[in-house]
């Protein structure tokens, strides 16, 4: 497939506006402002079938159409660049290597929903990305792609670049809004939904970096072209992140719905010599793990849902036979325990308890029944928490315990790891 999202990243100074414009950048914006009304753009994006790349796969055009019309209240667009999901590093590539592609998407989306203020909420650890985005925003202002009367048209937009302070939960859309408002990152309960009462209580649309980076391409080349990429109801290019013991880990831009084995074995070059596949976490740490016999699946939202897991952030984490499943699950439990915001009971207490039990099993003093207890705790968190972080913890741990139960029980009986996974 022709590269779209990553077509510029290997060019020298790919992050600069000159490079971006030399390869046709900001043409889509000119087209959007010159030829289309905001409603037209929402309609185009709806028909393109673009689904949110932040995890849930919600159709972007539909989300935009929820924004109330004819309200006096200010409207906001937020670009979610908090990218904190373990195993995920796709947005970072765009932010560092091609920030103008994202800005163009943000401006078009803001125009479509009628926002005059946009926020690019960026993960605090992304130093280079922050610098590059800051510079790109400055350049865009200088070239009148931002600010008053953009490209001489009757549309104005300002953008701010709030920087996160290091909390995974602030990638969740409502706690991200709390964070921008200067409050503690505690998710809000829905309803009300952000389209009605979002940032500062005003109508707000929030999209992932990759989602917005798709927008200029759709505007420029049209719905038919876009829907020809990918599989049924899962259109367009997709950035897949591959990590773990593979020969060529990294970010791969491939059509939505590319088969998982093709990504791991062809593009990422397969596992290190002598390693056997033990499992694949397909969509970032929060998605249920797949056993080797389950990996014949297309990497799109619907196929993975059918396989009992999720596309999530498309962070493909590969595990090989030398890796202890108890230890890797413990690492994830530690992460969710550390990142739980502490607001609601099941996640606050459940994540700590999961880590505690896994720690005991890994250290060789697990108790009989611990495997079932882990599963029970996950079931008790699942669906009962305020935000999806609780569910994420349950999905990262429950299926791993169920699918690798033998290995957990081996730890309980033998008080140590399987021979091949010992350090």
């Amino acid at each position, binding site marked *: 497939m022709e590269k779209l999202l990553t077509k510029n990243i290997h060019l020298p100074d790919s992050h600069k506006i000159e490079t971006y414009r030399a390869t046709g950048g900001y043409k889509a914006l000119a087209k959007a402002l010159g030829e289309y009304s905001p409603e037209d753009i929402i309609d185009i994006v709806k028909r393109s079938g673009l689904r949110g790349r932040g995890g849930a796969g919600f159709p972007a055009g539909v989300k935009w159409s929820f924004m109330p019309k004819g309200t006096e209240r200010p409207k906001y667009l937020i670009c979610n660049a908090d990218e904190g999901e373990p195993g995920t590093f796709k947005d970072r590539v765009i932010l560092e290597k091609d920030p103008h592609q994202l800005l163009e998407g943000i401006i078009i989306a803001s125009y479509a929903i009628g926002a005059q203020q946009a926020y690019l909420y960026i993960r605090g650890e992304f130093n280079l990305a922050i610098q590059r985005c800051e510079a790109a925003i400055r350049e865009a202002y200088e070239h009148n792609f931002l600010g008053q009367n953009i490209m001489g048209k009757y549309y104005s937009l300002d953008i701010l670049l709030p920087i996160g302070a290091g*909390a995974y*939960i602030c990638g969740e859309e409502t706690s991200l809004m709390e964070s921008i408002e200067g409050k*503690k990152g505690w998710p809000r*309960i829905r309803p009300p939904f952000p389209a009605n009462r979002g940032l500062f209580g005003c109508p707000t649309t929030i999209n992932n970096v990759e989602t917005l980076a798709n927008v200029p391409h759709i505007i420029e080349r049209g719905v038919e072209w876009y829907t020809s990429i990918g599989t049924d109801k899962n259109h367009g290019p997709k950035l897949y992140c591959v990590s773990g013991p593979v020969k060529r880990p990294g970010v791969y831009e491939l059509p939505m719905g590319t088969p998982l084995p093709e990504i791991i074995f062809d593009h990422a070059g397969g596992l290190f010599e002598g390693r056997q596949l033990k499992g694949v976490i397909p969509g970032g740490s929060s998605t249920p793990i797949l056993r080797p016999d389950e990996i014949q699946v297309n990497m799109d939202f619907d196929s993975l849902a059918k396989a009992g897991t999720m596309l999530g952030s498309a962070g493909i984490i590969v595990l090989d036979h030398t890796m202890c499943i108890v230890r890797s699950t413990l690492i994830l439990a530690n992460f969710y*325990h*550390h*990142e*739980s*915001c*502490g*607001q*609601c*009971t*099941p996640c*606050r*207490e*459940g*994540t*700590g*308890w999961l880590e*505690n039990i896994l720690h005991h099993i890994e250290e060789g003093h697990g108790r009989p029944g611990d495997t079932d*207890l882990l599963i029970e705790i996950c079931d*008790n968190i699942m*669906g*009962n*928490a*305020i935000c999806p972080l609780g569910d994420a913890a349950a999905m990262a741990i429950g299926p791993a315990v169920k699918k690798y139960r033998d290995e957990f029980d081996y730890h309980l009986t033998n008080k140590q790891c399987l021979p091949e996974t010992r350090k």
Partner: protein
Amino acid sequence: MSARNQEIEVKNLTINGQALQAEDGTVILEAARSIGIFIPHYCYHPKLSIAGCCRMCLVEIQGQPKLQPACRTPVEEGMIVSTDSSKAIRAQRAQLEFLLLNHPIDCPICDQAGECGLQDFYMMEFGQHKSRFAKEEKIKRPKAVAIGPHIVFDAERCILCTRCIRFCIEIAKQPEIGTKNRGNHSQITTFPGQQLDNPYSINTVDICPVGALTSKDFRFKIRPWFLYSTPSVCPGCANGCNIFICINKKHYVNLQRAQIYRLKPKENPEVNDCWLCDEGRLSYKLVNENRVLQPHIRQDGQLVLVSWERAINEIKNRVQKILTEYGPQRIGALASSKATNEANYLFKKFAHEVLETPNLDFLKGLTGYGDDFLIREDKTPNTRGAIDLEIGPGAGGIGAAEMLSPANPLKGLWIMGAEPTESYDNEQVNEALASLELLIIQTSNFTASCQWAHIILPSATFAEVDGTFINYKGRVQRVFKAMQPRPESLANEVILGRVARAMGYDWQEHTPAEIMRQIAAEIPRYHGLDYEKIGDKGIQT
């Protein structure tokens, strides 16, 4: 369709098989409560915004894959809810287990024991809980931290329901506390350099569902299950917040062993919702401290204890002496905005009939901090009542200011239930009182002016009498006798009756209820009122 029906839409739904109707906008938890179904909850409080964080109230709604929090899910037409399905029960048990995971379960040394939502549940509802989490591994946190002048915080017992935080933001309007840290290390904390010291801080103790916030004043004094509560009205200011007076034991009501241990808010949406200010809440101390417990007479400059008989005899002689030697123009009578209407009404009658004087007024007491929530600047509970009863100088009489000025023409003065220096200049008052031939003070507590008194009569406090106060908005509310008057002290109206009879007047002994009926007959504003009509919620006049 009537106008009313158009205004409030009613939804039909079923909870646990029981059909019911609820107004549009009602949350499931309240709808269930209306038909007697209790849904466990910790973070929900009807007077606060909805946090939805404890997850105790999860219920099953037919057609919805996930359980929903009953505290924030509004009723809908045709909704079928079950609070006791196996899925809902399982979720409730799970939340309880989560909450108890790091909870110390130190009920034996916890002040909340007996009125603790957590204890109620795991003991009563779900049976003795067997922990699947090792005790040694529970997270250690600070215990018994004074986070404000009135509040002690135990972080181990806190279940992070955030009621206290929401109270400070939404009701007290002073955000002084929040949470710090994340996950199960989250902890309630005061903001840097601040403490929980808003004027309403002790309400956080009432609404804390567990023993995490305790009142410095009340902690460790008594187990709540011993306490016996009587409804009443706070004497702390003109707002007239409704309270419960809690004494140590039910059968102590008629015994001298009765002690007030605390005041609690009594819900009244017309007055104080379910809140009290800290000052009012601690005002009960006047009942326990510094009481005048026997009549006193000044002899050779010293106050000596005497019997009621002797005191009344003395009053009779000395009042008569002043009346015959100087005439009624030279005697004054001061009632009080702290006294009940019944006492003030009788005092007025006493001044007119017994003292025969037009020099009548009432003392207004202290003024101080007030706000636009509950606390009034007028620190007495019944100014409005004294005004409505027209406690003031009659034809040719003088008022309080004149009576208490050094140039006053008085030889004798009778003060009931008030301290003049609270409302008038100290030195002027002292000079005025020092010049009197006879100063009779009828009071429950020793106050500054007692130093000039010739006779002091011990009277009962608001907690020891039946009567009514009228708040600043004109709402008549009843105080109920929560305990016997302290030894030898008597209700003001009883004292006045005794003196009147001793002086040869044909005064019947009237109960406060009877006096109220006389008031109602006499004062147009209160026509038709009696204790029954006033009830325990009061009546707006």
